[in-house]
C-alpha cells in the first residue's frame, strides 16, 4: 500500500466534488481524486497513492517509472487481481 504510481490524467470531471479525474497507468485506467492538485490539466502526469493524486510529475520521469514498474510486475501487483477483487467486494464497479 506504500506504492505511489505515476499516471497520466486523461479526463477531468469538473463537476465532481471532490475534484475527480480518470488517470491512465500504462494502460490501466482508474478514477483518482485530484483535489490536492487542483490546477492539473488533461495530459499532465501525477503521482497517485490510494486513489489520490499527491503531486505532479514531468512526463519523462513518469514514463520511465511506469516502464520500470511494468517490467517488474509492480503495476499488476498494485492494480491487478487485488484491485478487481477489492472493487468487486466493495461493490463499486
Amino acid at each position, binding site marked *: *500500500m*506504500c*506504492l*505511489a504510481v505515476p499516471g497520466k490524467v486523461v479526463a477531468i470531471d469538473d463537476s465532481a466534488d*471532490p475534484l475527480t479525474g480518470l488517470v491512465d497507468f500504462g494502460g490501466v485506467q482508474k478514477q483518482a*481524486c485530484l*483535489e*490536492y*492538485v*487542483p490546477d492539473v490539466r488533461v495530459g499532465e502526469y501525477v*503521482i497517485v*497513492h*490510494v*486513489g*489520490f493524486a*499527491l*503531486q505532479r*510529475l*514531468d512526463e519523462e*520521469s513518469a514514463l*520511465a*517509472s511506469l*516502464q*520500470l514498474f511494468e*517490467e*517488474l*510486475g509492480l503495476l*499488476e*501487483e498494485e492494480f491487478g*487481481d*487485488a*484491485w478487481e*477483487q*477489492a*472493487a468487486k*467486494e*466493495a*461493490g*463499486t464497479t
Partner: protein
Amino acid sequence: MKYLDEFNDPDLARRLLDEIRATATRPWALMEVCGGQTHSIIRHGIDQLLPEQVELIHGPGCPVCVTPLEVIDKALEIASRPEVIFCSFGDMLRVPGTGRDLFRVKGEGGDVRVVYSPLDALELARRHPDREVVFFAIGFETTAPANAMAVHQARRLGLGNFSLLVSHVRVPPAVEAIMTAPQCRVQGFLAAGHVCSVMGTAEYPELTERFKVPMVVTGFEPLDILEGIRRAVRQLERGEHKVENAYPRAVREEGNPAAVRMIEEVFEVTDRNWRGIGRIPASGWRLSDAFRAYDAEHRFDVTGIRTEEPAECRSGEVLQGLIRPTECAAFGTTCTPRTPLGATMVSSEGACAAYYLYRRMNAPTPQAGRAAREEMNPVA
C-alpha cells in the same frame, strides 16, 4: 552483479555504484526509513551490490508493521459486530492480532472488505445507510491526506454511519526516537520520498542539526535509491549533515500545502504506540475534536482494549535496525508469510517478508518474485 540487468538503466546504476565505491573511505551505516524502499533494496539486491563499507539498516517505515497489536485487536472486535462493514487495505487482512486476524473474522461471518481507497469505503457508507461502515485508517503522512478527505467528505455529506479506526503515524518523531536510542548506529537517513511529496522538507533541518546526520530525500526505484545513497555517503565523507532532495521530480520543498491543510483540519498530533518499539511521543495523528464523532474507537467503545505483545517475535529489534530478519530464530521456520508471527512478516514492505521473498527464495526474476508474492496475496 546478477541483479544489475534488472535496473532500467544498468549503465547508470554501475556508474552510481562506482562513485559510491570511490567516495566511501570508511564504514557508514544508513537507514532507509520507508518500507517501500526496503522492499526495493532487497528485491534488487542493492545492499549486496554496495561496497562493504556502506551498510543499510532497515527502518520502521512500513505502516502495516508498526500498527500496534492492541489496535489490531480493536479492529477485530469492531469487524466482528453484525452491523459493521469493516473496510481495510488488503495488507492488513492477515496481520495477526491476539489469536486471529481480519481474514479469519471474515471467514467467521464478519463483513470485512478490501478497498483500494478510503473513498471506496465512503461510497459503501452512502449505499448502505442501514450499516455502520468503518475504515481502518493506517499509514504515514503519504496516506493521511486521503483518509482526512474521506472523513471530511463524510461530514459534508452528513454520513453518520461512517467512521475511522485511526492508527496514523508520523516520520519525524520516529527518526528522533531512533537517534536517541542507546544502541543507535545510524549515521544518515534516506528520507521517504512520498512522505515528503506531501509534507515537504520543513521538519527535517531541525533533525539534521540536532543529531548531525544527513537526510537525503529519496525515491523508490533502484536508481533513485542508489542516488540517495551516493549523496548521503558524500555528505558523510565531507563531514556535512544537511537536508538534500534527491527526488525533486516528486518532492517540492513546501510539499503539498493543500494536502497538509486538510490533514491539519481533520487530525491532531498525539502520542502513539509502535508495534515492537513502544510509545513514541507526538508520533501519530488522531481525529481532532471537530471530527471526534467519526472516531470508531469511541463509537464502538473499544478504547479499553489493552494487549501485550508476544515475546518470541523480534520484530521490534528488526524495526529499529538492531538485528536482521535472518537473525531471528523463527525466520523461515515457524514464521513465514503464510504463518506470520509478527507484522514484519505479513506485509511485503516488512523487512522480514522482503528477506523471505527475495533473499531466502533467491527469486530475482519478476516471474519468480510474482509466484512468491502470490503466497502472500490474501484475497487470491
